[in-house]
C-alpha cells in the first residue's frame, strides 16, 4: 500500500520492457505530473530516457533512432493525437501505455493508423493518479463540485483515479461512504459500477480481511483546510504553495536565481523526508544543527544565531553552497516561512484559530476576534479565516454575531469577494450539510482528558486541533464507526478488524490530514492506511473550491437556505 512505489514500479516496467537503447518519454499534461512526482530527472536519465516530450506539442522533431514510450491518459484527444502520431511516425518504435481502461474501439483506431508497423506494445498501466507521499495521492482536480454536486467530468475523473489506485495496489475493497453526502454516495456507486464492469481486472488473490474504501466529503469538515499550519510540509503549502512537489520562491525578497523554483520531495531529499512532519520549532533546531555541523566542518567560528546569520554564512562559502544545495534550499524556505510568520503575526492568529475550534467560551472568543480584526497588523486573509471559523463554530449559537464580524471585515477593507466567503462556507460546510459532530471534541470527556494532559505537560497551543478524519479512522480501526452514518455499499460487511484502508476525500484533503494518517500508520501496527483527495488544499485553494461549489447552485434547490441570512 505505497502509492509512490506503485507508480514507480509501473514506470520502470515500461522503461525496462522497451529494452536497451535511447528513449523518449511521450506524455500528456496529467501523466507528466504523475511521472515527475516519483522520478527525478537524473534518476530517469540513468534508465536511458533522454527526452521528455508532450504528445500535444506540435512540431516535434523526427528522431527515428529513438524508442518512444508513450504514457498517456486514455482520453479521446489523446487517442486521436496518437493515431496522428502513428500515421506520421517520428520515432523508431512505439510502446504505448494508457493510464487507465481503454476501449477496444480505441485500440482499433490506433491499429488502423499504424501502417508503418512501429507499435510494439499497447497496454494499460493503472497509474492514473498523482502520488504525493507513500500514503497520500491526489487527482489534481480544482473545484470538483458545482451547485454542491458533482460536475460530470469530475465524477468520471474521480472514479477513474480511484479505481486506478485500487488496481495499482491490487485491492478490491468493500466500500463505505458518508451517508450525509450525496456526492459520496454517487462516487461510491460509480466506483462499484466500474469494479463490476471490469470484473476481470479486479480478480485478485483473496486476502483474509477485505480492504476498506472509505469515501468522505470535505463538507463534513470545512474547518481543517481553514486553519494555519505548523508542520513543515503543511506550512509550506499554506504559506507558499506546493504544486507537484515544486514551490515557487520567486516572491521571496533577495532570492538567488537558482532558488526561485525548488523541489521538495521526500523521495529525493533526506532532510525533507525527516522533517516534513516536524513542527516549525523543531525544524529551526534541526536546520541549526545541520548548519552547526557544516560550520565545524569548515572550521568557521562564527556564531550562527539567527536565520539571517545562516543566510550570510551560506553566501560566504560558495563551494559549500554548491555542495549543500539541500541545506541552502531549506534555509531559504524556512527563512521565508519565519519571515511570513513574523510579518503577518501568524502565531497570534493561529492561537486564536485553535481556540475558536477547540475551546468553548463564546463571548471571550468573539471579543478576541474583534480585537484582532481591529488591529492593523494581520492580513485580510487571516481575518477571513477567523471569521469563517467563528461562523462555522458558532453557527447555531444564540448570541452568534457573524453579521457584526462581516461588517467589521468590511470596515477593514476586506474585499466583497472574500466577505462573500463567510456565507459561502456556511452553505458549503455548515451544520445542515454535516453528518458528523465536527466540534464534538469539546464534550465533558475530552475536557477531562485535557485536564489530565495539562498535568502532564503543556500542550502545544498551535496544534490543539485534530482533524475529524483522525477520530473517524480511529473509530473505523476499532470497529466502532457507525453503520448509519457510514454505511456499506452492498450487503457484505467487514466482521474483522480492518487492515488495509483507503480513504478518499471529495473536495480535497489536506496535509494536516495526511499527517494524521501517517500518525495512525505508525501507531497502529498491522494497519495500513492511505489517503487521497480530488486535490490537496491550502486555505486559498479551499476558498476557490468553496466558491465553485456554491456557484451554479440552482436557486430552487437550496434557495431558501441561501437567502436566509
Amino acid at each position, binding site marked *: 500500500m505505497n502509492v509512490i512505489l506503485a507508480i514507480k514500479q509501473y514506470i520502470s516496467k515500461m522503461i525496462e520492457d522497451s529494452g536497451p537503447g535511447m528513449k523518449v518519454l511521450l506524455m500528456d499534461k496529467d501523466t507528466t505530473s504523475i511521472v515527475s512526482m516519483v522520478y527525478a530527472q537524473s534518476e530517469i536519465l540513468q534508465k536511458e530516457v533522454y527526452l521528455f516530450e508532450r504528445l500535444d506539442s506540435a512540431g516535434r522533431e523526427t528522431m527515428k533512432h529513438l524508442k518512444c514510450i508513450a504514457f498517456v491518459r486514455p482520453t479521446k484527444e489523446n487517442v486521436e493525437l496518437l493515431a496522428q502520431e502513428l500515421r506520421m511516425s517520428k520515432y523508431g518504435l512505439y510502446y504505448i501505455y494508457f493510464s487507465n481502461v481503454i476501449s477496444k474501439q480505441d485500440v482499433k483506431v*490506433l*491499429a488502423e493508423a499504424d501502417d508503418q508497423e512501429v507499435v510494439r506494445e499497447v497496454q494499460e498501466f493503472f497509474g492514473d493518479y498523482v502520488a504525493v507521499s507513500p500514503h497520500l495521492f491526489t487527482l489534481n482536480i480544482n473545484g470538483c463540485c458545482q451547485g454542491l454536486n458533482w460536475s460530470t467530468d469530475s465524477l468520471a475523473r474521480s472514479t477513474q483515479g480511484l479505481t486506478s489506485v485500487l488496481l495499482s495496489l491490487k485491492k478490491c475493497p468493500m466500500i463505505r461512504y458518508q451517508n450525509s453526502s450525496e456526492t459520496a454516495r454517487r462516487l461510491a456507486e460509480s466506483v462499484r459500477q466500474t469494479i463490476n464492469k471490469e470484473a476481470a481486472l479486479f480478480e485478485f488473490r483473496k486476502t483474509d480481511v477485505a480492504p476498506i474504501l472509505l469515501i468522505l466529503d470535505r463538507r463534513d469538515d470545512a474547518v481543517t483546510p481553514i486553519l494555519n499550519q505548523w508542520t513543515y510540509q503543511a506550512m509550506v503549502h499554506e504559506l507558499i504553495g506546493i504544486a507537484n512537489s515544486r514551490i515557487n520562491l520567486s516572491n521571496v525578497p533577495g532570492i538567488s536565481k537558482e532558488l526561485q523554483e525548488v523541489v521538495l520531495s521526500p523521495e529525493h531529499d533526506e532532510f525533507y523526508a525527516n522533517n516534513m512532519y516536524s513542527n516549525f520549532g523543531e525544524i529551526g533546531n534541526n536546520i541549526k544543527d545541520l548548519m552547526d555541523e557544516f560550520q565545524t566542518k569548515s572550521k568557521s567560528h562564527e556564531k550562527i544565531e539567527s536565520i539571517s546569520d545562516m543566510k550570510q554564512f551560506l553566501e560566504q562559502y560558495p563551494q559549500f553552497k554548491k555542495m549543500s544545495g539541500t541545506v541552502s534550499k531549506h534555509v531559504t524556505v524556512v527563512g521565508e516561512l519565519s519571515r511570513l510568520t513574523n510579518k503577518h503575526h501568524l502565531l497570534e492568529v493561529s492561537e486564536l484559530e485553535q481556540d475558536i475550534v477547540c475551546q468553548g467560551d463564546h463571548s471571550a472568543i468573539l471579543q478576541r476576534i474583534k480585537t484582532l480584526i481591529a488591529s492593523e497588523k494581520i492580513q485580510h486573509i487571516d481575518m477571513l479565516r477567523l471569521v469563517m471559523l467563528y461562523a462555522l463554530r458558532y453557527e447555531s449559537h444564540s448570541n452568534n454575531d457573524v453579521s457584526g464580524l462581516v461588517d467589521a471585515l468590511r470596515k477593514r477593507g476586506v474585499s466583497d469577494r472574500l466577505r462573500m466567503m463567510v456565507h459561502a462556507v456556511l452553505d458549503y460546510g455548515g451544520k445542515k450539510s454535516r453528518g458528523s459532530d465536527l466540534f464534538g471534541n469539546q464534550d465533558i470527556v475530552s475536557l477531562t482528558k485535557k485536564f489530565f494532559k495539562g498535568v502532564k505537560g503543556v500542550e502545544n497551543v498551535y496544534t490543539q486541533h485534530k482533524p475529524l478524519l483522525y477520530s473517524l479512522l480511529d473509530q473505523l480501526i476499532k470497529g466502532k464507526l457507525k453503520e448509519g452514518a457510514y454505511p456499506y455499499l452492498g450487503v457484505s460487511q467487514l466482521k474483522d478488524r480492518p487492515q488495509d484502508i483507503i480513504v478518499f476525500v471529495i473536495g480535497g484533503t489536506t496535509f494536516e490530514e495526511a499527517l494524521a494518517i501517517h500518525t495512525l500508520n505508525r501507531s497502529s501496527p498491522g494497519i495500513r492506511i492511505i489517503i487521497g483527495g480530488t486535490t490537496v488544499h491550502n486555505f486559498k485553494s479551499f476558498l476557490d473550491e468553496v466558491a465553485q461549489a456554491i456557484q451554479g447552485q440552482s436557486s430552487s434547490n437550496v434557495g431558501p437556505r441561501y437567502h436566509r441570512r
Partner: protein
Amino acid sequence: MATSSEVREGFLCPMCMKDLGTVSMLQDHFEEEHSNEDKDVLQQLRGLFGKAKKKILGEKENHDYVDQSDSVTDTYSANLTKTGYDSSLWDPQEIGMIRSHTDVFKATRGARVDRFVVETNKLIIRLDKLTGSNSPTDTGKRKAFEKSVVPWMPDKYVQTCPDCTRNFSLTRRRHHCRLCGGIMCDKCSHFLPHTFAKKLTNPAFQTEMEVGFLKRTGSNSSLNSLMSPEGEAHIRTCNNCRKLLERRDQQIQQRNVKPPIVIMYENLQSYVENAQMLLKEFIPMVESLSCGESTYNMYTAQQYRNKILKMYESIDSVSKRIWVYETNADPLPPATQLKMQKNIRTMATSFMQDNMIGLQALPSEEHYKKLQEARKIEIQQRIADERQAAAEAQEKERKQQEQRETTIKHQIHPSNRDSDQPAKTQKKSGWIPEETSIRYSDKDDPMVQQMNIIRGYIKQARQAEKYDEVKMLEQNLKDLQQEYLKQQRQNWS
C-alpha cells in the same frame, strides 16, 4: 554461570554479572553496554521491570513506558515529534495490475497491413523477374517479355491519366507501368534503376556486403536517379508502385542502418556496463585492503583500478563526443537532438560522479604494510583481551579444547607439515587450493586456523582469477567468523 559456585543477589546484569545497585541503573547499563547484543533480552528485562514496578511499588507507569495501549489522543501528540518519512513502514509490494491490448492491436493492424505486404511482395517478385538474368536485352523481345510477366491494361479502358487526369492524345501518349500494368502519361511515370531493384529484391546480397552497398544506395535510391530516364538500365513504374517500394526500402533501411550517434551511444553503454562490472569486483577489494586484510592481492586491485580508470576515460571522451556531435554542423541539428545529446552527457557525468570520481585510492605499499601491522596488533589485542576476560571461566574448557584442537587439526589437514609443495599445475577444470603455503600458529583455536586457511584459499583463488569461488569462500569465512565470535562469547560467559 557454570563456573561460579557462589549464588549472588542484587541487580546483576545478565550479560556481564556486574552488580548495578538499582533497577534504573541496571537498565541504563544494559541499554548502553549490551543493547546491540541481544534485543530480546532487553525487551524481556524491560517488560519484567515494568510489571514488577507496577506490582511492587504500585507505581503508575512512567511516561517512558507509554505505548499504544494509551488513549489515542496521547499517542497523537507523542508521535508528532517523531521523524517524518519512514520507508520501512511500507512493505515491499508487487507491481500493480497490468492489462495488455497488444494482441488485439496486432491482429487489427495485421489485417490492414497485410494488404500492403501482399501487394508489395507481388511487386518485388515481378521486379525480380524483370531484372533477372534471363530477361532479354533486345528492345523488341523485351516488350513481349515484360508483357508476359505483367499483363498490360488495354489502352481503350483508359482515356485520361489517372494521376494528372489529362486526356491522352497524339502528344500525350499512354505508358504502362511495368510492375502493375497500369496506364499513365510520361510525366507521371517514374523510373526505377536496376541497382535499386537489386537492392529491393535481394536482401541477402545486401547483408553480405553491407558496408560497400550501403554507401552506393545513397545516390542510387535518391529521387534524381529514380526520375532520370538516362544512364543505367531502368524500369518504368507508376506512382503507386513507387510508393509501395519506397516504403519497403525505408523499412529495410531503418532495420539495417545505424546513424553515427547510435553507434557512439552503443559504445558508451558498453563502457558503462563494463565499468559497472569492474566496480562490483573492485569495491570489496579496496575495502578489505584498506582495513589491512590480506584477503586480496594488492597487485590485482591495482590492475582493476587502472582498468576502471581507463573505462572512465573512455566514457568521458565518448560522452563528450556525443555532446558536441554536429554542434558545428551547418545547418544546426534540431534543438531536441542537441538537448538529447546534452542529456546523454549529463547521464554519463552523473554516472562518473556517483561511481568513479570518489573512486577510493588504494593504500600505498608502505601504508598497506602499516595497516596490516595495525590490524595484526588489533586482532591480537582483541584476542588477548577476550582471553583475559574469560581466563578463569575458560580454564576448564581449555583442556577439552586443546584435545579437540589436535584431533580436528589432524582431520582437516593431515599433510600440513609437508612444507612448500610446488604449485599444482592448473587443470582444465580450474584451480585447486593449496593447503601448504599457509602458516599459522599452533596455539590458535581450530576455528581461527580454519579461518586462516580459508583466507589463504581466497588469496590463491584471487591469483587464479576465480572470482565466483572467491565470493563463495568469503561467505564461508564470514560464517566462520560469526560462529567463532559466538563461541568466544559462550566461552567466557
